[in-house]
């Protein structure tokens, strides 16, 4: 079934072919059947806000398709992107479990299919299925890991150049082309990259120009090629 955003919608978790590859969704048939009964499947366009930092938790959002930007915002309007969530991740999990307000804002970067589960249904579902509770614990551990990684990067990096070098190396490992190592698609704008490393858009643009001039990277449209990996590593560990 096609949605208005060009998404091929997964109609049922029971028949989803991607389920086995995803950390949260790969559950027993009984647990999937019960999840099917409590979830609301929705397609969102790019730029839709799923929930906002500080909002009381309504429930969890299971990302089936598309990517979502997770960010925090200061009182003077500065944004820091913590993570780009990928399909299979459960968003709003810690707030839904603890009952505390959402600690992040989630905004779709692409058209997305999302399964929403209301808080009270989700908590009952966890009580009924220990295997799901264990899976949730694993997802929360991953989120804690991400937050610690972010603290490490923000608190112990000396310069924006070092933080950008770290980000590019991480992306190359995670999203790089397996056949052509060091080559990847840049899916974020300079403004968004700046928000990921806690600096300004102007600084990111200047650093990219500097890296290109020093032949550390090459940019062709949205394709980035790391030409001198060692130079990036030296920026991190001088």
């Amino acid at each position, binding site marked *: 079934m096609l949605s208005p955003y060009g998404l091929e919608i997964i109609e049922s978790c029971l028949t989803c072919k991607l389920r086995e590859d995803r950390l949260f969704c790969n559950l027993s048939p009984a647990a999937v059947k019960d999840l099917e009964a409590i979830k609301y499947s929705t397609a969102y366009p790019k730029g839709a806000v799923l929930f906002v930092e500080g909002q009381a938790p309504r429930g969890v959002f299971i990302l089936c398709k598309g990517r979502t930007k997770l960010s925090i915002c200061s009182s003077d309007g500065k944004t*820091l992107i913590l993570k780009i969530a990928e399909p299979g991740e459960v968003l709003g999990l*810690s707030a839904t479990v603890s009952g505390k307000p959402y600690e992040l804002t989630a905004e779709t970067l692409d058209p997305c299919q999302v399964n929403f589960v209301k808080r009270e249904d989700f908590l009952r579902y966890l009580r009924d299925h220990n295997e799901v509770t264990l899976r949730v614990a694993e997802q929360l551990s991953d989120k804690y890991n991400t937050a610690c990684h972010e603290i490490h990067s923000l608190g112990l990096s000396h310069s924006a150049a070092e933080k950008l070098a770290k980000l590019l190396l991480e992306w190359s490992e995670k999203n790089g082309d397996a056949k052509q190592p060091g080559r990847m698609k840049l899916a974020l704008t300079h403004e968004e990259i700046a928000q990921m490393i806690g600096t300004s858009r102007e600084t990111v643009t200047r650093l990219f120009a500097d890296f290109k001039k020093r032949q550390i990277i090459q940019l062709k449209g949205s394709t980035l090629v790391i030409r001198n990996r060692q130079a990036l590593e030296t920026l991190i560990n001088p």
Partner: protein
Amino acid sequence: MNHGGDIPVSFFTCDVAPQRLFTHLGAEALRDFAAIQNVQEVPKGALLFSEGQAPTALVLLQTGGARLSVCSSRGEKLTLRMAKAGELLGLSANVSGKPHEVTAETTVPSQIVFIKRKDFVRFLKDHSDACMQVVQMLSNDVHAAYDRVRAIGMARARHVRN
């Protein structure tokens, strides 16, 4: 060996019940939890686990205190927070099986309960209420970590510009 702290004999019989740990479990679950504990006294400055190390055991800080920190490749240390008696340390790494994200080091002589990872995972599989409480603890840890990210990230965004 006693390094100077007040040492309860067992968590199960301890009068000063740790505040955050398994407060509403049934008798059977508490008995099973007591059976997998290994109590040790450690001096000030003991390294309980290090950032990057594979998790082998969960650490329950029964008495005393510990510093949780991260370290840069240049050796600079950033303290995340001070853990108090009653806290479970290394929870997320032991649940996920991924390396520890932080280093934990005692700040005073402490009594520590070590719980082997495989025993802990089996305990969670056997006791759904304990598993639910672990999920609650992890949620609180995630909230605290995001608060720290907000504090550090926003301060750096204001002051570091090049």
